[in-house]
């Protein structure tokens, strides 16, 4: 009997032993992630953080959504951009909060890189200096974006702590710009003018100088715009790419005109906005946004005349012939061509009564409500659902030339030589041949030239995300973003001469030139304050 029980005791004791041995430990660390103590061990690891900063510099959704904020596009479906461009946004509008957090997210990555890269053992000194300059460029570009949208914003150059984030106040727009420019200056000194091989696509000194020119442009600081642009022009690194439409083709990425772009790779790192921009027969999902009649009307006749000029030769019933070739490269109009994967071209009929699925249908949310489709940046090499690997250009040389032309005109210095170097070169590249379109006319007043240059800028850079900043700095947003936008002449003839009347917009000049400080951020940090009118 006693022995039997000994057996049971042994059984129980062995189970206790199992208990004591089968434990996991109370001290666990992750196997799929690094910790702060283990991360910074190689140059590669440091470069991954810098890569993240590049990722956060600018995204494709903002690239296309920024254009939707302007009068070049009409937004079909409810979105934050539609609320903002209609003038009914408020401090809780998501875009404001996202812009704020995305920019500061990128800034944190840059600061983290700058503060920790020195921990990496045995890192090449030259490489480290260059990478630091890249990080500082990206950080400066993000502060510039913030201050352009919001005016005064919190400014800092090292990572802040959680308590600091709850009390930090906004620095003045001027102080932020000052910081941005000085950072761009020092980045320009450490960055190479160009790269080779696997590094192509990184920021260059040219990008830093061009971005600096833009910081002056948005302040209408014409003298500095002119001198900074001249720096880029005299570097002789950049030139206009001969084929306007080809600028935006995947085959011509990194061409001589590109100063700064966001880089993509087919199938691996892609964007797919055209899934919601393309015409129905190209296999779109819905129609998110489409060009307005106002944009289409901006394109000149081949003879250089505005369509409204007497004797321009514009025929309202056949509106897309003899027009600036950039129109067809930018906007898909009725009977325009659409390149499909595999090399075929579709002729898209949008006009009602043509009996195709692309036809304009009143009130439809899946076909364009303007009678036009976006075309610039449509990439026929996409895979899957419009997954494109095409780079998106943030600054190109034509922009520098246009900035220079505008500055020179505002300074009263526009002359034949400046014209030829800028507008003429751009128009010739676009495909104009008529001398009336190409040559400088001494009879033009400064004001005439201002209209010409501004229209040229709109046509050349349409759908590239810059228009909204132009109409804000010109203070024309209050007129062009007020009233009804229009579509093609497919509407009832009794309303607006038959041009489709779209949802009304309002613009409050006392408020809408700045974004609101996001309400949630104000709630978390009472020192932030708010922009007027929100």
């Amino acid at each position, binding site marked *: 009997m006693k022995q*039997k029980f000994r057996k*049971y005791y042994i059984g129980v004791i062995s*189970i206790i032993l*199992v*208990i004591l041995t*089968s*434990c*996991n*430990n109370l*001290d*666990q660390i*992750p196997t799929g*992630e*690094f*910790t*702060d103590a283990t991360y910074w061990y190689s140059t590669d690891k440091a470069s*991954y953080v810098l*890569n*993240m900063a*590049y990722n956060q510099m600018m995204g494709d959704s903002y690239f296309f959504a920024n254009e939707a904020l302007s009068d070049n596009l009409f937004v079909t*479906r*409810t979105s934050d951009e539609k*609320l903002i461009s*209609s003038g*009914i946004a408020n*401090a*809780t509008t*998501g875009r404001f909060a996202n812009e704020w*957090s995305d920019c*500061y*997210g990128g800034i*944190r990555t840059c*600061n983290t890189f700058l503060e920790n890269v020195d921990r990496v053992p045995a890192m090449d000194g030259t490489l480290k200096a260059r990478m630091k300059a890249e990080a500082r460029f990206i950080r400066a570009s993000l502060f510039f974006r913030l201050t352009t949208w919001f005016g005064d914003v919190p400014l800092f150059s090292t990572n*802040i702590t*959680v308590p600091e984030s*709850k009390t930090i106040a906004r620095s003045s727009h001027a102080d932020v710009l000052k910081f941005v420019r000085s950072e761009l200056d020092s980045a320009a000194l450490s960055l190479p003018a160009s790269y080779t*091989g*696997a590094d192509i*696509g*990184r920021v260059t000194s040219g990008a830093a100088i061009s971005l600096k020119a833009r910081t002056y442009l948005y302040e209408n600081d014409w003298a500095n715009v002119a001198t900074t642009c001249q720096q880029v022009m005299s570097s002789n690194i950049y030139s206009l790419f001969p084929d306007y439409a080809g600028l935006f083709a995947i085959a011509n990425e990194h061409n001589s005109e590109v100063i700064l772009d966001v*880089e993509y790779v087919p*199938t*691996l790192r892609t964007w797919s906005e055209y899934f919601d921009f393309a015409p*129905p027969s190209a*296999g*779109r999902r819905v129609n998110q946004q489409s060009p307005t009649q106002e944009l289409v009307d901006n394109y000149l006749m081949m003879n250089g005349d505005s369509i409204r000029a007497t004797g321009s030769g514009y025929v309202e019933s056949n509106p897309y012939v003899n027009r600036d070739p950039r129109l067809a490269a930018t906007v898909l109009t009725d009977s325009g061509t659409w390149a499909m994967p595999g090399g075929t071209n579709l002729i898209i009929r949008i006009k009602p009564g043509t009996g195709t699925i692309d036809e304009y249908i*009143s*009130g*439809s*949310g*899946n076909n364009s409500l303007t009678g036009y489709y976006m075309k610039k940046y449509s990439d026929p090499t996409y895979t*899957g659902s419009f997954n494109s*690997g095409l780079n998106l250009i943030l600054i190109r040389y034509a922009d520098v030339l246009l900035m220079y032309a505008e500055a020179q005109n505002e300074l009263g210095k526009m002359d034949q030589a400046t014209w030829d170097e800028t507008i003429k070169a751009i128009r010739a590249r676009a495909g104009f041949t008529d001398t009336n379109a190409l040559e400088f006319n001494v009879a033009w007043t400064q004001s005439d030239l201002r209209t010409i240059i501004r229209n040229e800028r709109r046509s050349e850079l349409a759908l590239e995300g810059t228009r909204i900043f132009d109409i804000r700095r010109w203070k024309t947003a209050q007129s062009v973003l007020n009233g009804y936008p229009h579509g093609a002449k497919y509407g009832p003839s009794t309303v607006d001469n038959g041009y489709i009347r779209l*949802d009304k917009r*309002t613009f*409050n000049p006392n408020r809408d030139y700045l974004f609101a400080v996001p309400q*949630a*951020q104000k*709630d978390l940090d009472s020192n932030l304050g708010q922009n007027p009118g*929100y």
Partner: protein
Amino acid sequence: MNLLKIKKPKLRQRRFVFLTFVLLLFVGSANLAAQNRKITLSMEKVSLRQIFNAIEKQTDYKFLYRDVILDNKKDVSIKVEGREITYVLDQVLPAKDLQYKIQGTNINIILNTIHKNTVSTGTPITVKGTIDDETGQALIGVSVIQKGLPGNGKVTDANGIFSITVPVGSVLSASYIGYLTEDIVVKDSKSLKIRLSEDTKTLDEVVVIGYGTAQRKSIVGAVDQIGANKIDDRPVSNLTEALQGASANLVIQQKSMNPNDNEVNINIRGISTMNNNDPLVVIDGLVTNLGSLNELNPSDIESISILKDAGSAAIYGSRSSNGVILVTTKKGTINAKPVIKVNAMVGYQNPDVLVKPVAGFENAILKDEAAFNTGNTLPYSPAQINDLKINGAKSEWFLNQILQNALQQNYSASMSGGSQNSSYMVSAGYVNQQSNFISGNSGTYGMDRYNFRTNLVNQYERFKLTTIMSYTRSESNAPNADVGNLIVDGERIPNYYYYQQKAPNGHFLINDVLSQFTPMGSLEAGGYNKYDTDYLNGSLTGELKLFKGLTAKAMMGIDLYDNHRTSRSEEVPYYATADATTPSILQNPNGSTSDWNQKYYTINTQFLLDYDRTFDKHHVSGLLGMSNEAYNSYSNDIWMNYVDPKLGTPTSQTTAIAGNVGGDTTPMGTSVSDIESLFGRLSYSYNEKYYGEVSFRYDGSSKFAKGNQWGLFPSISAGWRISEEPFMESYKSNIGDFKFRGSYGILGNQNINDYQFLTTYSTYNNTYAFNGTSVSGTGYQLGNPLITWEQSANLNVGFDASFFSNKLTASFDYFNKVTSGILIYPTEPSVLGTAVGEQNEGKMQNQGWELTIAYHAKTGDFNHNVSFNIADSKNKVLAYTGQQQINSSDEMSSIIAVGQPYGSYFGYKTAGYFKSYADIENSALPVGINASQLAPGDVKYVDVNHDGVIDSKDRVILGNAFPRFTYGVTYQVDWKGFDLSMLIQGVGERSEFLRGELVEPYQGNYSYTMFQNQLNFWTPTNTNATWPRLAAAGSTSDTNNYGYSSQVHMFNAAYVRLKNIAIGYTIPKSITNKIGIQKLHISMNAQNLLTLSPLTFVDPESTEFGNNMSSGGANSARSYPTLIYAGFGLNLEF
């Protein structure tokens, strides 16, 4: 042989008591003054009951008594004429050891207490006897005592035999947990045969509690036990559904009835933390995760205990603050013949779609009206409208085309029994629930579950070994499509005859409003997601009785999930017209295959010392234990694009292009954590009257940094059965038991992701690219080394009472929980630039109450059981980072704000609709909206702060999505073999925010049809409307009316639902025995037959809020339809 078997109370008396009860309840006694108080009787050799009945016939007096006290009384004779009631009673009662008390017209008959305790002094003799239960099985361990002399007692042995020496004429009392106590008078030494009948709802009920069991009467915590009878025979596909309405404050919300995604919220006592509110689930002593409940075979369940308060739950310490669900599965019985049970249920689930679109031509007219109202171009001409009308009969709503009735089958079989030293229960089950979506290439959608279980108990002298092995396999075949999309794409297409999903030649069609894919194409050809889970729950428990009262117990168990999913995303071509030769668009153009595997297991080891002794009137029990839970999860996944369209295997396209194959390996999918614990309990009771208990648990968790890993979670509880006090003697005899109880304790919660205390860097592929080559990027999350346990201080007070000899029981609890140091992802300002790990920053209070009433009675051949429970919980945020946080998703906003219920809806109050243009001019308008852009009939908002503009400062709390005043009513009745059962379940108060197409007409140029529930809109002649005037999508009016988080989107989602009704019949044994069947029961079942709610167009039970009130939107309108089940059941017993 003299069979001294106690007669069961006769049915008639039971009915009498029931009627009395009914009278008391519904008639009241006010007008029942006895008109005729003189009594004339002449009766020979009749029972007391017959005399009482005769008196009742002559007078308005009603007799109240416990049946048992009239049993075994000698017949009496009486002859009186015109006498007072007291005279008559004095004549018959003194000799019968009974007393009476007259209260109004009620006469309470009680035992004569002085006489009761008299000990017989007759000649001592030794009697032997056997005790068995109603099925004839010997009962072991039944205590047999001489009444009035508790020291003289014996216990039955393994064969149910006892032997005791008592004086002749003394009364033996045989009592056993879970059975009614029987009293027998010893007349001679002839052997006794005593049969105990089961007592399903008494104070002696055995309740499973943490690491042990207790009798109901000694429970001082808030514990509910749900018996098998509430779970069996319900045509549910999983256990959680069966628990709905079963226990007060066990709040179960079925978020979706989709068999492929049976998402259920389970909350015990509401929302007490901003973190995870999942209760802890323990199956046969083994800690598992919440989802395991649904892996069980409901027929295997013996009982489910719900531990609600600190007193009962603190033994589970760190994981118990959300309550604990203890599941106990059925075991066999020692010395029992094998019993084989077979259950089958087969029925159909019919989708109940609550919305209906308007007819096509009506829709065109309405759309024109909307455009006209806001000055837009009219989209439809009269000719087009006429065309739609003429061809209206040819149209069919897309949603109807993709839904169908679906088969559901439940089968289970078990065999149980035992020999002298061992018992067994072996069972198997199968459930199949088909999806209500149509299917095609991917086979029938739906789920299957296979269960297998072996529960063995082997006992050899002082050693007992319990072996539990349960295996579940679940398989699910789901469409490769989002359910919300399928529903909404079915709903939002107008009834126009020219919109078709499929051409007669088999082409899937798209159109200008559904331009990407159709639900029919997705379902029939878009691929599948096949999930399968192998779940193993097994344990080995050895128990050794060391010496009297002390048992050592060691347990080791594993709870293992092996999850696997394989998905195919198949390319579907869509055509613009039936005769088009090239497709317009391809759905899933990069046709892919993916696989995901996860192994998740917990190894739980426990060692316990259990002490339990009774010394005279003192009962002491103690428990000391240690435990380790080791959690391990490993997963990996792989996917390939551009695979072979038929087999899903790689092609040269798959492999040639970088990025077409991807996934995660095990190091990226590993999570390991650990909890080590020491715990104990000490309870003491005196004379089954005073109860006291303390318990504690000391837990260490790997989720925290060294120094913050350990937490102590103590509790104290006490109970007082006041009805046992001498001064309550007559209360106890006449009314019943009454117990006060209370507990206080600290519970913990650590349900957060692993490694939060560390700053972690994660690397992502394809973050950026340089010169056409993609590169990786690294992001990081700031860790917080200071995080530690959440603590919740719990107070619980309550009482249990029984009335009418336990026929009516009531139980009430009030609780107040304050949870502090709640682990939340704090909302830091985004200027910080990075995510921050969880912090102990929240604090909230949650208080509420529960009331449970149960009644069972027999009236004639009717046997009734009614139970009712109702409960409420109300929470309030006491502290939160930055005082408040507003979360927005689409139009919906919710707020976490100090002083308010957690996660309340937040937005603008409405003040009806603008009456005139002057009204618009004079009213505050939303920021950015000018008076000229609005018109009468648009929504007017309340300018809460009177600053002349509607802006974010005007937002207020609009309601809360968590159910309040939840209740359940169960009614069961049987009559001569027929039985009926009903479960009604409901919610007394709940708000629901609904956005999208069912609320906003032509929402966002996305919805193209209006629904019949939207037709009562404002027009100049219908100003008292439910909805604002029609406005074109995208117009300022539309934004004004529907674009904000406002009361326009708020709905009252209270409801009452006939959850289940079943009618059955048991074929008489006399018939079934001839074919060797012990029991044959057939039934008809229906689920969700009837729902009443102010919310008529959306299932009021559906919610997108999870267990911690988090939500990704307000799209309940797009959830899977309510299912109405109707079917048959069959139970067989051999």
